């Protein structure tokens, strides 16, 4: 009996394809016996095109239907009555068949009565020589996979015939089977709808074949039907939703609950995988598909339908699944096709371009300046004091918890404490040594970071080399090192890589995450830079609107880190105190605008005042010498504006302007307090940013000068090196605040006691000018650098605990009838320390304090120690010291740490480079390919 073919042409917004498709249908050698045109909710001229063709019946679905739904509707409404040898030919608006297509398909089904479905070879609409799809199958785990995608048709697949599934477009299916199986699963609107149907056809005991000689065009995958485009996220959502549905529909009844329970956890795990693989755009769809899958009400219907029609076991399908080896080959092939071409830009190489020489040179300068500290176990002085004794203690000082500084309070840790915990953990056996190591490498490390950043913007070696030298020997860096301003040092080292990462973040998720981490580190080190850096970030957002998704998240880690401190400071109504320098508060001298201009953090003209006096040239104006040496840098920086490259030089100089403004404003903002004094914000951080901008503009100028850059580069390099001589020599001579220490914060006598009783406290009474006394408490071995808190240093109020301590201090510094002994017992204070002071204005107060302490019978003088005069209260009885909850001791504390942990874990995951660099490999066959493959599934 002659087979009867009903062609069903479904169209949705396909007016650009329909004329060709209708024409191709009309041009078939074996024309279909009847044709039904279905318009499924088109909003363009598709419907008119279909009715104009007047070839056949036209059906319009009520509203939009899926491809399968539209076919079902058409058959319901318009199909001629079924006969036994009746076939359906399903076509989409883009499926223009080649003239012999239908006859080839019919030829294949006529010779094999067991065949219920035959699929053509789908060719790309735009490139008719390339196969779009020819067969679909499943992996062992049930994921759908196309057998062929986007391969040039060289007849290499023409041997295949039996397939697990074929695409819906161009499918020739026996109408009886189609009706029996209930058509396409309505729960699968596009993706995997045809595959699922074919699987059910197979399980019902029929065969599915591919017919290579039948060629039908296709404009894209099933999910693109009726759409102009589809985002990667939506595509992934459709695929995942289809897979989850099929998994629940196919699974044995007993395994369904297990599968159901695993849906959401799997979605979360896969989201993390997407993050690590730099595909954050897929995460939303992944989670949405997981949640939708968990509430998929269509599963029982699908399962019933499958059970009803199933005639064979799953073994019938298993033989046609794609083996793993083939799956891996497929993925390797996909990656090879989609891998972006290597960047074409070629900059100077680190070794060949002179970067290595600059690092060696600056390393030499670093060794000269700080080499004498190499044997130190810890550093102290200025803003420095040793860190906690082990990594566990370091990490116990983060989060929202009891802060053991002064009388102690419950509050949030400085963001800087987190950074110190990270740095200290590098040398976990002796955290303080990490600071020593940082001092030894800070100068060459700055050269490395500056060189890498400058090389990003350079084609020739001169500019990065001078930038590295100028950055590593920048007066703000050296002044920060000499003064123990660790935060400013870290900010200086990290600023160039922050710029580099932020610039690259416009194109790379990984770099965006790295920039986020660096921004957090710089903000934690020098909070005063946050306003300037935020403005720069906003400007970069505006300049790169297409990358807004990548760039917008850069401040998120910093925001997470600062959140608790911001809440605390605004709660106090003291928001400006957020900009306080972290670390031990020290009294900074505020330099004038002129001094800031020459990069000097104080009135000492970047060390030139003392240096000239030291070499007996006190008559020479020091500021003038420093200014003259900086003229080459200034000239080049301003010259950059006159040369090509203003898109780079203007931002650089604006950065310099903001850095300078930060430094100037910082010297007028006194928020941290040291005893009776308030101290301005350290100018070094702002000056580092200022220097960054100047050096950046200089790089642009040297680049623009091209081959004529050599002379200006050499002159500038020499001048910048000379500027640094006084600060380097002061460091080398030891005439700086930072000094080597044995790691003890308190006299050895106290440290020894603290070993057996770590909660014993030491009352420190520092004489102040005008007869005042500054009081603080050190618990156990002392207040470490990581225990310092800007919340404490900037507190403008006197708490009850402060008042209690002040009462004790006031009375113990006087001849008094106060019961000092019981108060010392109650606060568990066993020692009283009066630190040394070189300020003669504190003399009277000091005399008063020592007189009172000496005259106090219950205190026995221990004597003069390295830290000051010490008294011991021997009458102390063991008791509980004032303390409070740890980082996990309060619900808020837990929330803070968990929130910060999640933000940083996700950022780190995103930051880890997972896209592998392509390496040249010797020909070793497929093994090399296997190594390249990733465990993660491609979307």
């Amino acid at each position, binding site marked *: 009996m002659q087979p009867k073919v009903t062609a069903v042409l479904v169209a949705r917004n396909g007016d650009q394809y329909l004329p060709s498709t209708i024409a191709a249908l009309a041009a078939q050698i074996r024309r279909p016996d009847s044709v039904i045109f279905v318009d499924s909710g088109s909003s363009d001229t598709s419907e008119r095109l279909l009715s104009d063709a007047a070839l056949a019946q036209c059906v319009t679905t009520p509203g939009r239907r899926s491809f399968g739904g539209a076919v079902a509707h058409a058959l319901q409404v318009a199909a001629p009555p079924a006969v036994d040898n009746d076939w359906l030919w399903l076509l989409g608006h883009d499926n223009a068949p080649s003239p012999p297509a239908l006859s080839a398909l019919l030829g294949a089904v006529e010779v094999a009565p067991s065949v219920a479905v035959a699929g053509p070879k789908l060719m790309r609409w735009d490139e008719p020589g390339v196969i779009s799809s020819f067969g679909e199958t499943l992996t062992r785990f049930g994921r759908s996979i196309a057998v062929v995608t986007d391969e040039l048709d060289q007849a290499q697949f023409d041997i295949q015939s039996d397939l697990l599934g074929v695409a819906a477009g161009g499918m020739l299916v026996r109408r009886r089977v189609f009706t029996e199986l209930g058509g396409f699963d309505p729960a699968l609107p596009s993706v995997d709808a045809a595959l699922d149907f074919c699987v059910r056809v197979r399980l019902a005991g029929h065969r599915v074949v591919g017919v290579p000689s039948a060629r039908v065009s296709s404009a894209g995958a099933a999910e693109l039907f009726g759409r102009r485009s589809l985002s990667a996220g939506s595509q992934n959502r459709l695929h995942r939703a289809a897979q989850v549905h099929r998994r629940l529909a196919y699974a044995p009844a007993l395994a369904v609950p297990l599968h159901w329970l695993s849906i959401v956890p799997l979605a979360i795990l896969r989201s993390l995988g997407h993050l690590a693989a730099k595909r954050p755009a897929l995460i939303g769809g992944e989670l949405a598909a997981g949640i939708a899958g968990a509430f998929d009400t269509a599963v029982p219907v699908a399962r019933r339908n499958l059970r009803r029609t199933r005639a064979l076991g799953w073994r019938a399908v298993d033989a046609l699944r794609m083996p793993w080896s083939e799956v891996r080959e497929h993925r390797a092939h996909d990656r090879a096709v989609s891998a972006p071409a290597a960047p074409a830009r070629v900059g100077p190489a680190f070794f060949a371009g002179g970067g290595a020489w600059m690092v060696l040179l600056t390393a030499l300068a670093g060794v000269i300046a700080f080499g004498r500290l190499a044997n130190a176990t810890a550093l102290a002085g200025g803003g420095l004091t040793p860190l906690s004794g082990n990594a566990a203690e370091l990490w116990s000082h983060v989060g929202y918890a009891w802060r053991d500084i002064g009388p102690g309070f419950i509050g949030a840790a400085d963001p800087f404490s987190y950074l110190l915990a990270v740095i200290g953990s590098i040398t976990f056996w002796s955290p303080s040594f990490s600071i020593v190591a940082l001092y030894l490498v800070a100068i060459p490390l700055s050269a490395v970071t500056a060189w890498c950043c400058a090389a990003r913007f350079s084609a020739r070696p001169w500019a990065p080399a001078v930038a590295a030298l100028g950055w590593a020997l920048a007066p703000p860096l050296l002044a920060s090192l000499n003064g123990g301003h660790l935060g400013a040092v870290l900010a200086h080292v990290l600023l160039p890589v922050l710029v580099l990462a932020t610039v690259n973040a416009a194109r790379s998720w990984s770099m965006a995450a790295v920039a986020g981490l660096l921004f957090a580190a710089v903000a934690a080190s020098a909070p005063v830079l946050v306003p300037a850096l935020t403005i720069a970030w906003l400007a970069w957002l505006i300049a790169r609107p297409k990358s807004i998704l990548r760039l917008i998240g850069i401040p998120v880690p910093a925001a997470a880190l600062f959140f608790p401190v911001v809440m605390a400071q605004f709660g106090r109504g003291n928001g400006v105190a957020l900009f306080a320098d972290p670390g031990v508060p020290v009294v900074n001298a505020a330099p004038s605008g002129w001094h800031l201009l020459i990069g000097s953090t104080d009135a000492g003209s970047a060390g030139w005042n003392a240096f000239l006096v030291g070499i007996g040239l006190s008559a020479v104006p020091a500021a003038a010498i420093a200014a003259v040496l900086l003229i080459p840098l200034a000239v080049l920086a301003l010259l950059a504006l006159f040369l090509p490259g203003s898109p780079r030089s203007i931002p650089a100089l604006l950065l310099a302007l903001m850095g300078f403004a930060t430094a100037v404003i910082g010297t007028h903002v006194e928020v941290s*307090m040291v005893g009776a004094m308030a101290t301005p914000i350290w100018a070094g951080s702002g000056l580092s940013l200022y220097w960054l901008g100047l050096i950046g503009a200089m790089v642009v100028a040297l680049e623009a000068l091209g081959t004529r850059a050599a002379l200006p580069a050499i002159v500038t390099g020499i001048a910048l090196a000379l500027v640094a001589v006084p600060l380097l020599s002061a460091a080398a001579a030891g005439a700086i605040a930072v000094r080597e220490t044995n790691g003890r914060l308190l006299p050895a006598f106290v440290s020894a006691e603290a070993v057996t009783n770590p909660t014993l406290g030491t009352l420190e009474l520092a004489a102040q000018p005008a007869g005042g006394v*500054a009081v603080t408490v050190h618990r156990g071995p002392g207040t470490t650098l990581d225990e310092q808190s800007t919340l404490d240093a900037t507190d403008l109020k006197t708490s009850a605990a402060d008042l209690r301590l002040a009462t004790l201090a006031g009375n113990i510094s006087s001849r008094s009838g106060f019961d000092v002994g019981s108060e010392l017992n109650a606060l568990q204070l066993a020692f009283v320390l009066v630190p040394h002071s070189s300020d003669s204005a504190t003399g009277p107060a000091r005399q008063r304090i020592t007189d009172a302490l000496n005259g106090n019978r219950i205190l026995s003088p221990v004597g003069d120690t390295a830290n000051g005069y010490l008294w011991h209260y021997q009458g102390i009885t063991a008791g509980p010291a004032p303390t409070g909850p740890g980082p996990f001791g309060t619900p808020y504390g837990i929330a803070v740490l968990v929130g910060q942990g999640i933000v940083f874990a996700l950022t780190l995951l995103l930051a880890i480079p997972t896209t592998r660099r392509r390496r040249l490999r010797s020909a070793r066959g497929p093994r090399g390919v296997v190594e390249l493959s990733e465990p993660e599934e491609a979307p």
Partner: protein
Amino acid sequence: MSDQRELPGESAPQDDLFPEQEVDVVEPRTPVTVRGVAIVSARVMTGLIGIGVAAATIAASALLPLPGIHAVPPSTVITPVPTAQQLVCPGAVVRLSDETGRGATTVSAIGKPDTDYRSSAGSIDATPLTSSDASTGGSASAPIVVSTPPDPGAAAQLLLSGAQSQSVKANDFVGLAAADCGVANGDSWLAGGATTVGRTTLLTLSNPTEVAATANIVLYGETGLIAAPGTSGIIVPARGQRVLSLAGFRPNIVSPIVHVSSSGGQVVANLQESIIRGLDAGGVDIIGPTSAPAASNVIPGLLVANSAAVQALLGRGADYNDVVPVLRLFAPGTGTVSTTINVIPEDATAAGTSFTYQLEAGRVVDVPFSDLGDGNYTVKVITPVPVIAAVRVSTAVVGGSTDFTWLSAASELDDHAQLTVARGPSPQLHLANTTTGATTVTLTAQDGTVTKVALPAGSSALAAVRSGVTYQLTGFDSIYAAVTVIAPGLIARYAVHPPGEGSTPVTVYR
């Protein structure tokens, strides 16, 4: 082409290209067109704007007065809980021999002083020190520790004062010595005495505290710093007295000044000088601590009496040269200190004087006051750097006894003070107001008698007081005070000290 006007220096083969073509990799080369000119102009404009912005920023930062945020460190003024106040009265005059004049290595006391003391509230407790180099431990001749029990109920500061006097007439020791009872501290300066022939100067260190004190002394003389063995690590036992002879450190010092510092316990340091000229007793004095080095020293209560008899003594020989009134000055450090000395009379009957003196720092100098007529004076020493100052004055009766006293610089009294007048003949209270405003001092005697003394700006005044009576001084901002007792051939004087430093409120910073 048009660009040849723009770039006249370019060579002909490149004239249709930008000259930077070879070097500019950032921007694609474009032939010089109107657009090219526009780009160059734009760059020049950018550069000029940039320079302008830079100049404006520099000018603004360096010249504009910028507002600032200045945190005020939180502080609390803590008024110490009132406590037992303690004064130490120096005790009896001691000498370097026993009663028979032999045994020059031992120290013995001569008699006992009359001591008066009083507290503004509450009971008072007086106990002698328990040990002394003069073997007076526990006796009435020992230094007496006067203390009040703590009075937590008292809102006002507890005031305690005491004074002693002793008229000695034992062989070579003839004279009147008076002193007030002092607060033990860790640092005191003593100006006075000499170790030349016939002059004996003893340093007494009294430790009223419960812990032993380690005292270090530094001696200065007319030759500068005097290095001597035994000046450091002098142990003064708890509640004990040490007596040391300055001559034991270095004999023949004409003008010693002693700086005593102690650690551990605290001490009250006094000097005691006695003079013998040939066979004539020349007087006895107990010298209290003078002010720590200060740029302004005020010495009230310079009492010149019987100057004719003193002048007459000068004729007896060089040994009598030290009856002339002198100002002892010492400036720590080096260089020359221009010193202004004002001698202000208490009333119009005497004429004052004023002169400047170029003081060589680092050495002790005795500046003589010549031609001071009988009368009461206040001496004011103004220097650009901190100095130590004290005055010695002598009195005599022709054919009778001779006595002298050292006038230490008085500490400033602010707001209120309490003093006890030592027993003796003709006690007088001298008050000096060195401020530029007039003030009236109210003297309230222990029996409630009130006396008001008006002190015009920059003036000194005398108030009659009763022997052995305690007075409270109120109603002033800044005065200096001293008490004198005088009789023919006998003189003693001591300065009034402010209430104990250790109990004043203190500012405590966090």
